[in-house]
């Protein structure tokens, strides 16, 4: 073993959706400051296997901050203490020798726990299915440069589209609201000419689905944006509200 940090971990263990969960305490020695947070969990799991205990289930995949799969609620904050950083990109140098670290799953009614730190985020997929797209079948497109798009609009659309769909915004919000996630997609497409044809119906349908999934309402505390690992701006929520109200006033789908 190469590191010299010793840590106390309090980790949420829950065997399935129905079961009651609780914290388990673990001691971990020889943690290197160069390890990522998930590599520290790899070490914990190897230690648990050695002891004949079941390892902690947690979601992770790319480990480079882009797939959106990792989702740990660390010391009361989604993805831990750093701004603009996912759990997988958080490194142990952000902690001190002797620290106690509390790790929980995302907590929201719309994200039921599957096991331990793993939650079900299918609700996000269903919100996208409700309208987070441009209805263009393959083969219909005109030349890509036929329609110039102002650089500023393209840049703003990209900034919104950088959302990784991890759900930290929901986990951060005291109401478990998904407004930041939904508004990022609505904004991306509202800012681009390609999104105009379905602009109103998209806002209506996505918001309706968001509500149906059981996400809470927005009270503008801004925790979502502050904790977002991609620093998606609150402006998107303002834009979504404009889009939604505009759509409702002129809706033919009342």
């Amino acid at each position, binding site marked *: 073993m*190469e590191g010299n940090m010793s840590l106390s971990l309090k980790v949420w263990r829950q*065997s399935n959706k129905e079961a009651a969960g609780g914290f388990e305490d673990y001691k971990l020695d020889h943690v*290197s400051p160069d*390890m990522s947070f*998930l*590599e520290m969990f*790899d*070490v914990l*799991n*190897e230690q648990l296997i050695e002891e004949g*205990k*079941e*390892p902690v*289930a947690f979601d992770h*995949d*790319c*480990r*480079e901050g882009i*797939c*959106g*799969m990792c989702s740990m609620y660390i010391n009361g904050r989604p993805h831990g203490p750093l701004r*603009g*950083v996912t759990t997988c*990109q*958080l*490194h142990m*140098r952000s902690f001190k020798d002797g620290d106690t670290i509390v790790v929980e799953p995302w907590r929201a009614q719309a994200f039921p726990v*599957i096991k331990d730190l*793993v939650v079900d985020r*299918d609700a*996000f*997929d269903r919100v*996208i*299915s*409700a309208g*987070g*797209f*441009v209805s*263009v*079948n*393959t*083969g219909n*497109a*005109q030349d*890509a*440069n036929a329609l*110039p*798009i*102002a*650089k500023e609009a*393209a*840049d703003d659309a*990209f900034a919104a*589209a950088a959302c*990784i*769909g991890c759900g930290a915004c929901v986990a951060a919000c005291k109401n478990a609201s998904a407004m930041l996630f939904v508004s990022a997609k609505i904004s*991306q*497409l509202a800012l681009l000419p*390609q*999104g105009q044809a379905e602009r109103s119906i998209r806002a209506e349908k996505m918001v309706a689905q968001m509500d149906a999934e059981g996400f809470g309402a927005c009270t503008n505390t801004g925790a979502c944006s502050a904790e977002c690992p991609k620093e998606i701006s609150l402006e998107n929520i303002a834009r979504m509200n404009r889009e939604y109200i505009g759509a409702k006033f002129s809706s033919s789908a009342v």
Partner: protein
Amino acid sequence: MATSSRLDAKIPQGQLESKWSKYRSSVPLVNPANKRNLEIIVVGTGLAGASAAATLAELGYKVKAFCFQDSPRRAHSIAAQGGINAAKNYQNDGDSVYRLFYDTIKGGDYRAREANVHRLAEVSGNIIDQCVAAGVPFAREYGGLLSNRSFGGTQVQRTFYAAGQTGQQLLLGAYSGLQRQVGMGTVKMYNRHEMLDVVNIDGKCRGIIARNLITGEIERHGGHAVLLCTGGYGNVFYLSTNAMGSNVTAAWKAHKRGAFFGNPCFTQIHPTCIPVSGEHQSKLTLMSESLRNDGRIWVPKKQNDNRPGNEIPENERDYYLERRYPAFGNLVPRDIASRAAKERCDAGYGVGSSKLAVYLDFAAAVERYGRGEANKNNIHNASDADITLWGKAVVKEKYGNLFDMYKQITGEDPYEVPMRIYPAVHYTMGGLWVDYNLMTTVPGLYSLGEANFSDHGANRLGASALMQGLADGYFVIPYTIGNYLASEIRTGKISTDHEAFVKAEAEVKERIDTLLRIQGKTSPELFHRRLGKIMWDKCGMARNAQGLKEAIEEIRQLRRDFWSDVKVMGTANYFNPELDKANRVADFIELGELMCIDALDRNESCGGHFREEYQTEEGEALRDDENYMYVSAWEHKGPENWELHKEELVYENIKIAQRSYK
């Protein structure tokens, strides 16, 4: 050499330029009413899988799509950084379909099929059109038109990009198209499902066995065709830039059910990755090739120079790529850049604490961009500090997310000190052998994207993986699948009660039970590490006959150890990532053996396959076109037993030459 009678690439007759258009006009069609009765199973939802599933559903087929992640949006295509190539010639710099075709064949060191690559180049432009129409926010210039940059192995600017997150934007585009079909009910999506076998009935692929990873339930799914879009197998090396979950299991099961495996030893080692920092390392992180547009690669001229990079004066730096390859400089193809870095480090010029790293330096770019900004704003007496400030802002706009990632992982700020980089396993050119229709040697079983072997020869050029994934899914399979399904309209619904399904399901269950029953001492993770070490040491950036023979024996021993000593915790009837991992590692071990066998068979060096015995005096790869201008397609005959079939590569439109980037 003649092509094996077991392989028919089904390349259409006629001139290269007109093969695809003629094929499209003459391929059998399936009428809309019949499409509704034909079911297609798509495994994997990366660029190839998501685009194929969405497009086939749009055409009217009934589609079932599977991914092991919690959402199709997580597929590892999402991590692709630099960009996607297309022969649009928007930059007016002499690009054309032919040039993209030529660059790709040459970049692959003359080991790819002409007809497939030409088709790829032909549809490349349509991909960009399609993605823009779907709302993908590519980078743009102030005039509102699309921006381009350069990638390795080319002398034109044909790479379209969205900062360093092009894969993310393209995948989310394809994903939104897929979710649209899911919402319409034309695609049924199965998240957190892993394919554990394919089912063949009377010589045709008729479905899959999948495991619901949440409940552990084993499911049978029937279909008239199965598409494996399951990505590459770089994780056989344990450490790679792939996602933790990326695995070979689906492709490997198909291989064991009759699909030949093409060129398994062709692995891409990417030159610019963040170096290994310690034993705990679970994966490696790429620093996009696009950085080589602006970054200059160097090592100190003096061996074992321990001074910090920015204290080494200009005249004591060796910009070895610019020195060795003046025509392409820092933008030589990946295999060449990787070997050159290894050569310098092996010779004692490496930097950093491990000495297994070289510098990637942006100081010159910062200054150039800073001056450009000053000129743009009509400021002619700017201070050096201002120029640096403005230059850094431009670099940030182009590569900001990559610089942030580097800083987060290494704890060093690349705006201030040069990046340290080293080659790492990134992509696999090898994969399931497919014909021109993307069909494997099992009728009805297809393979798309990185999972197949078809387009990149022995080395893939940067920004071509995204191109191939979307080409296969959006523009190739929707046509070529008709060729097969037109004859399936009378088949009727596939019953999963057939004994082949029953048998395959029983075998899957038996294997899972065996894994849980062993209760040895070693975790799947540790077996994976041991395999990775063998593969990297003996079948990695440089290979030789002796090492490969040793590796084969070591892997065989590892396989025996695995099946007697693996320790899998938990049970099979709930969410159990340890069991999933054990299943995958078992397949990686078998694949590793085949990769070494293939590398041993190929007594030449080409592209990413570098056999130390076969090199030029300057240390470049030395091909043997007379004896090895073939695709190796391996047929699985039983444990530790494969038969080699050769597909001769015929070049009618390109003059074969020793690859030169000097």
